């Protein structure tokens, strides 16, 4: 059931982007570019601080419960979910030290293959501490009902 969930914006969540977390994420993906580990290297490359890798915004969303809260609120077992599609639209950079506010909303809920697969589309809008839009995420979650 999506009553009261579809289209509802969840309460905003804020997340402080710590440089240690960026380094941990970068190591976990096998990234070695010093801009993700060393503020001096980042500045030398023209950034005002350590930048985040392209998919790090999804982790900021996860920390705010996007899309896990939608899945849980709909009573769906997360072990039956897989990621179908992911999109990022970058409006501005995210750096170590930024405080990012995320707002998530379930925007679509539909089925395919006679109900064997259910698709949930969650959009997450992120702004920084100056109120500037930095990233919009569109996440398609596939629920295997079969």
């Amino acid at each position, binding site marked *: 059931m999506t009553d009261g969930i579809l289209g509802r914006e969840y309460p905003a969540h804020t997340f402080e982007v710590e440089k240690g977390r960026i380094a941990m994420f970068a190591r976990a993906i096998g990234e070695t570019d010093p801009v993700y580990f060393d503020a001096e290297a980042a500045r030398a490359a023209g950034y005002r601080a350590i930048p985040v890798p*392209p998919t790090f915004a999804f982790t900021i969303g996860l920390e705010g419960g996007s899309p896990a809260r939608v899945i849980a609120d709909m009573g769906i077992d997360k*072990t039956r979910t897989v990621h179908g599609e992911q999109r990022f639209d970058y409006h501005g950079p995210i750096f170590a030290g930024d405080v990012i506010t995320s707002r998530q909303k379930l925007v679509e809920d539909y089925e395919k293959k006679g109900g064997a697969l259910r698709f949930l589309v969650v959009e997450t809008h992120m702004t920084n501490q100056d109120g500037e839009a930095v990233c919009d995420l569109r996440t398609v979650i596939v629920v295997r009902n079969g």
Partner: protein
Amino acid sequence: MGTARFEDLAVGQEIPPLTKPAVDRLQLALFAGASADHNPIHVDEGAARGGGLPGVIVHGMLNMAFLGQVVTNWVPVGRLRAFATRFAAMAYPGDVITCRGRIAAVDGAGRTVDLALTAENQNGEVLLAGTATVAFP
């Protein structure tokens, strides 16, 4: 990083591919913690099988992170304007992922390039089919 000149770019050109070391369970555990994706299907065999999977699967977002690296090895991360993928097939521990990018469109006025991206496993099976838009100075 990022030595490509906009004036030299044309549709059909390929960017340097990236082959990652085989994904192992340690990497899945580290990525679960670092990324905050705590779905047990990526680290717990029992939970994965209970969810109807043959065993633990690689996080789709780890594969997408690899796909991001093939782009940011080519241009600095600050140049990315959009990045999207479809997760077409699952990856498993031991898989060797190769990421490729090809220029799909060049916008001379906006000085942006659209890339068509793929991540494939050691058998050539496409796991991710994506796109990225990157800006040039």
